[in-house]
């Protein structure tokens, strides 16, 4: 299938992840005793992409576009409805229990909300040490404490924090704990799900720098999920834009920002406010009309066509496929 190779870099590169035609439908049921399915929420509706080792791919889109669900499927926190996820050459939906355990060590996650993603009743040291205990990496308590201290200082926190509870820390510090926990098992791949969105700007920059340093030091691969285009541009090598469960454009970061082709990508870039009053005053704001439709009953054909400026009648008929218009630049819009 041509779409399979999508978004993929050239073949000789060391591919760490390959996602093919991933679909995740959440059923909506009715009835109290006898539940029957009445509809599906098509959170992710057939997306394909691949990532090479050491790469940071930005997954950008607005709420409800399926970017978080994609991340959760890769982490196997959701069992996908259909489609294949191949990690390091292994199809993860067919893994045995013990292989799955191995997989979970290599793939970690940093969540958005530093307030709800840390157990308020556990000390920081226990939070970071738990993965090593569960996976029986370091079973000796003093040895583990030493590693926790090492991870804390790696993430820019004093080792004394290991005796504290999450509520004693600020948002930025908690997010550093989240990063330290994700690193505890020496992962290869980290899903950063809106990892800096909840932080104040001055703190956000600190955590972005930390993520960059760690990536360089440990050759980590990040799937960086965010709605913030300026952060994506800063951090990622390649960017995939999602809309209502579909991938509408994939390109190298600079190419995407300098030469966006899909009308949705353009609208998204237009909507980003710039911190410069003179520039803003001269900027022509083309504001995309309407709201994001419901993923229960998405529009036919191209899901963006009801809000699209350049839509033609054919757009409501067939779902456009991602097509490579330039080397490495894929767009799902025949009119672009």
């Amino acid at each position, binding site marked *: 299938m041509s779409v399979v190779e999508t978004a993929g870099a050239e073949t000789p590169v060391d591919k760490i992840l390959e996602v093919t035609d991933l679909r995740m439908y959440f059923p909506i049921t009715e009835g109290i005793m006898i539940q029957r399915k009445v509809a599906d929420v098509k959170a992710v509706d057939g997306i394909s992409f691949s990532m090479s080792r050491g790469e940071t791919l930005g997954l950008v889109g*607005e709420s409800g576009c399926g970017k978080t669900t994609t991340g959760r499927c890769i982490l196997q926190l959701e069992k996908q409805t259909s489609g294949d996820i191949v990690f390091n050459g292994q199809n993860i939906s067919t893994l045995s229990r013990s292989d799955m355990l191995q997989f979970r060590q290599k793939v970690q996650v940093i969540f958005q909300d530093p307030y709800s993603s840390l157990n308020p009743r556990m000390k920081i040291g226990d939070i970071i040490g738990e993965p090593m205990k569960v996976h029986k990496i370091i079973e000796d308590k003093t040895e583990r404490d030493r590693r926790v201290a090492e991870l804390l200082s790696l993430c820019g926190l004093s080792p004394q924090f290991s005796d504290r509870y999450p509520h004693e820390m600020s948002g*930025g510090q908690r997010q550093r704990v989240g990063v330290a926990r994700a690193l505890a098992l020496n992962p290869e791949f980290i899903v950063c799900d809106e990892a800096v969105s909840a932080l*104040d700007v*001055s703190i956000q920059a*600190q955590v972005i720098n930390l993520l960059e340093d760690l990536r360089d030091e440990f050759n980590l691969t990040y799937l960086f999920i965010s709605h913030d285009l*300026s952060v994506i541009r800063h951090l990622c090598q390649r960017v995939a834009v999602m809309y209502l469960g579909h991938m509408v454009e994939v390109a190298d970061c600079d190419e995407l920002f300098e030469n966006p082709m899909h009308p949705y990508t353009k609208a998204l870039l237009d909507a980003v406010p710039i*911190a410069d*009053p003179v520039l803003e005053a001269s900027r022509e704001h083309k*504001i995309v009309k309407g709201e994001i439709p419901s993923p229960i009953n998405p529009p036919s054909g191209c899901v963006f066509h009801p809000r699209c400026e350049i839509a033609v009648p054919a757009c409501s008929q067939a779902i456009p496929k991602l097509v490579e218009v330039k080397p490495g630049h894929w767009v799902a819009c025949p009119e672009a």
Partner: protein
Amino acid sequence: MAALLEIEGLRTQFFTSSGIVKAVDGITYDVEAGETVAVVGESGCGKSVSALSILRLVAEPAGKVVGGTIKFQGQDLLALSDIEMRKIRGNDIAMVFQEPMTSLNPVLTIGLQLTETLTHHLNMSGEEATARAVELLGLVGISEPERRLAQYPHHLSGGMRQRVMIAMALCCDPKLIIADEPTTALDVTIQAQILELMKNLTRDFGVAMIIITHNLGVVARYADRVNVMYAGKIIETGTAKDIYHTPKHPYTLALLKSVPRIDQPRVAKLDPVQGQPPDLSKLDGGCAFRPRCRYATDKCAQSIPELEKIDGVHAAACFRHNELEEV
């Protein structure tokens, strides 16, 4: 002529078990009729509390406005009785809150929530109020307004709810709208829609607006004047151009530098503000930004810098504002 709103030396404190938190510590600014003023700062800098103080919505007894005056059309709001204050709230001064999800009552229809203000403040009959509510919903760009009146907040998307909140704020032709992070919870394309709507409405109706936000980008396009707050104080004030092009306080400078921007070349490393914001219950007699400041000297520890005029309306509270590099 006096300004529409004059805030002078406003101080709001919270009395907690760990001491007195000086959430707002002596802020002074004016809002002229029809003007849009932005208050920018990070969480905990007192920007929301300063807005709540204007409307006297700070929860007592934990919090209290302990000093200063707030004059609205020459009338001191802090001296009014509760009944008189209720006549101003939602009528002359309206508020748009941050969370469209939680600031509408989930068990009342949109129609009831909109008409409540109209019948209360303007003594409209039910029919008049309904007609006006339909008109208002149309004004803020909600399709099929008649049908929406019978719907509940959970039927609407976040962007639509924020439009309803704006319609509510517009009910009684207010002279001032205070918008507390009006677009923070929204997606970028919806944020652009809402900001543009608010700008058009303030222009068409000559309403003054105070926008409170943590996002410097959001206000660049819309604000006539910007106040930057840190640790309960305004540390820099000026026109949008002053603040964005020639910031004179190290904190403003650092804020501008720490955000990646899509209009500028990519940089290898961001330049964050080091350290954490201070604990507002443990402030000393020096500049609150001192521990995080690159330009701090011994003088900064000894006394708190006052806002010093630079030119026009531009002022900064920093002893070394003349020595900062230009960006």
